[in-house]
């Protein structure tokens, strides 16, 4: 918080620095460069705090241009991240657009009470949790497996070529992924249904059926993200000391044993960090993807919290109620990250913070 006020005070001070810009900056006291200075304060650890306020002021003034640099970014985070967080308070109001935030009536926990008594809500929560579970179970291990397989490839050209191909879908929008899925799965002339018909099976209305929504969803997730997901694991694997493999081979370990005893333990902490982040994303299943797959026929299984929030707010105007739902979702996500992180730390892992 202090930083923000100092920035403001810097902005308010009449500045002659336009003149000094480009001219030699005065050296810090005692002829130290600021790098040495920083190194010195780092060594002293506890002494990192300014000894006197005048020294702090001097340092702030010396770095004024750095504060100018970070100012637009800070304004961005305040306006589009922190103001909306405070905007969550409309979940406790009956927000009416034309009365605004200040004029709307406070109603306490009314919307949250409605949330937990609404029969629809349990269905939506179940749908959300099911998709989340499928993500963890079916998607999450695949990039790890792929990275391990790719790590065993010795032909550099093959490796590069493979990476080029499987990274590609990640750069396609959900609209494109879902559209391609659509032209392939449609009943009239889609390649998958034509294949089924050719093989003597009955055509399946994938796009409108309730049973096929979840498989379609998870296959598209895997198609788009599995290849890209390997990058971080490959980076972690690349930092493993080759001598470890050498030693294992000396001891007669085969390929699979090397993977099991060296590669996997080496990327364990990365896997755990990504798992924690994934759990925090619990309810972040990709609004766009589900929204694009959603239609009036599969709504029973496809409606998740995000899509429900969107529909309730923007099509039915229930701003406060849908904000309450969104709040609930964000809150659960935060709690789960904190819990998962605690658990990881108890197990002797680093965790994300």
């Amino acid at each position: 918080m202090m930083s923000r006020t100092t920035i403001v005070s810097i902005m308010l001070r009449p500045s002659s620095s336009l003149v000094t810009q480009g001219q030699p900056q005065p050296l810090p006291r005692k002829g130290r460069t600021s790098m040495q200075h920083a190194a010195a304060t780092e060594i002293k650890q506890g002494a990192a705090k300014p000894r006197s306020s005048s020294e702090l002021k001097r340092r702030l003034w010396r770095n004024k241009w750095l504060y100018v640099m970070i100012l637009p970014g800070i304004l961005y985070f305040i306006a589009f991240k922190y103001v909306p967080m405070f905007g969550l308070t409309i979940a406790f109001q009956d927000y009416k657009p034309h009365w605004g935030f200040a004029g709307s009536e406070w109603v306490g926990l009314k919307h949250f009470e409605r949330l937990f008594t609404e029969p629809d809500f349990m269905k939506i929560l179940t749908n959300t949790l099911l998709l989340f579970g499928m993500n963890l179970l079916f998607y999450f291990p695949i990039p790890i497996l792929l990275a391990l397989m790719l790590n065993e490839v010795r032909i550099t050209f093959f490796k590069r070529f493979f990476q080029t191909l499987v990274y590609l879908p990640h750069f396609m929008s959900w609209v494109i992924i879902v559209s391609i899925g659509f032209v392939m799965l449609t009943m009239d002339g889609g390649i998958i249904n034509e294949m089924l018909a050719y093989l003597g099976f009955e055509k399946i209305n994938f796009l409108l059926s309730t049973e096929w929504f979840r498989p379609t969803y998870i296959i598209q997730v895997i198609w788009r993200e599995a290849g890209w997901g390997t990058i971080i694991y490959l980076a972690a694997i690349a930092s493993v000391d080759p001598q470890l493999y050498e030693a294992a081979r000396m001891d007669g370990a085969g390929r699979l044993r090397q993977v099991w005893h060296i590669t996997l333990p080496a990327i364990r902490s990365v896997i755990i960090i990504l798992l924690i982040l994934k759990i925090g994303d619990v309810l972040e299943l990709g609004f766009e993807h589900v929204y694009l797959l959603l239609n009036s026929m599969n709504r029973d299984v496809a409606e998740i919290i995000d899509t429900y929030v969107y529909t309730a707010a923007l099509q039915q105007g229930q701003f406060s109620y849908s904000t309450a739902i969104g709040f609930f979702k964000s809150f659960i996500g935060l709690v789960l990250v904190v819990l998962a992180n605690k658990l990881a730390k108890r197990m002797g892992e680093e965790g994300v913070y």
Partner: protein
Amino acid sequence: MVEDRTVSGRVFAAVNYTLLAIIALVTVLPFLHVVAGSFTTSAEMAVKKFILFPTVWSFDAYKFIFSTNTIFRAMGVSVGITAFGTLFSMLLTALMAYGLSRRDLDGRRGIMFLVVFTMLFSGGLIPTFLVVRELGMIDSYLALIVPASISAFNLIIMRNFFQNIPEGLEESAKIDGCSDFGILFRIVLPLSMPAIATLSLFYAVTYWNTYLSAILYLNDSLKWPIQVLLRQIVVLASGMDYSSDLDSTVPPPDQTIKMAVIVVATLPILLVYPFLQKHFAKGAMLGSIKG
């Protein structure tokens, strides 16, 4: 490392290569099918269903979709948003990342915490929507750029990259009279080309793929970017969704036409992808691992 020459080692390698080849093939087949389908006639499409290479070439689908200026306009909107958005985002990200990369900046830990926290908790869709509306950005292209201008993730990658540049360089520039802005633009940025290429690609792809912000903030269909138009042509116009609202006398767009629109919407990414691919794998690794 040397190739394993034992029998089990060879079997393992053979299985591994085969599986990976199949995975790569399955990943690209849908794209090939769509591209091939867009270059053939509807009649051919109806006869040969499993097209991967057109036997009868035709540009009818493309002639049709470019017969009005709808696609051109949407492409123009997307190109504009992508170009300005990427520039704007990179500028804000580089400035903030550089400030936060300097160890002598007071308060940087606190600011970093505030940045990271936004990755764990957010106000969500509706409060953000209300902020954008309060700022008067509805039906303005600004709504597609400004609310998404800094990605916390990209900011952290960039900051980590800057931190790995030897501090001595900056110090000596400073002694030679370079200002902080001068150091950033003349020394740090030219040394950060891999990170700049990577993050520009990430931002550009995000802007090109903008869909949610467009349907949230743009009511005027003349302002739609290509993604919204694509969605409209492929799914909604075919009468699948909300079928009751649609005029059933208008035939749904032909498969080949849908495929052509998909190809057009994908093309810009396919064009830049090969050139930047090397960079981004490297850049993403540099930033992500040392977090």
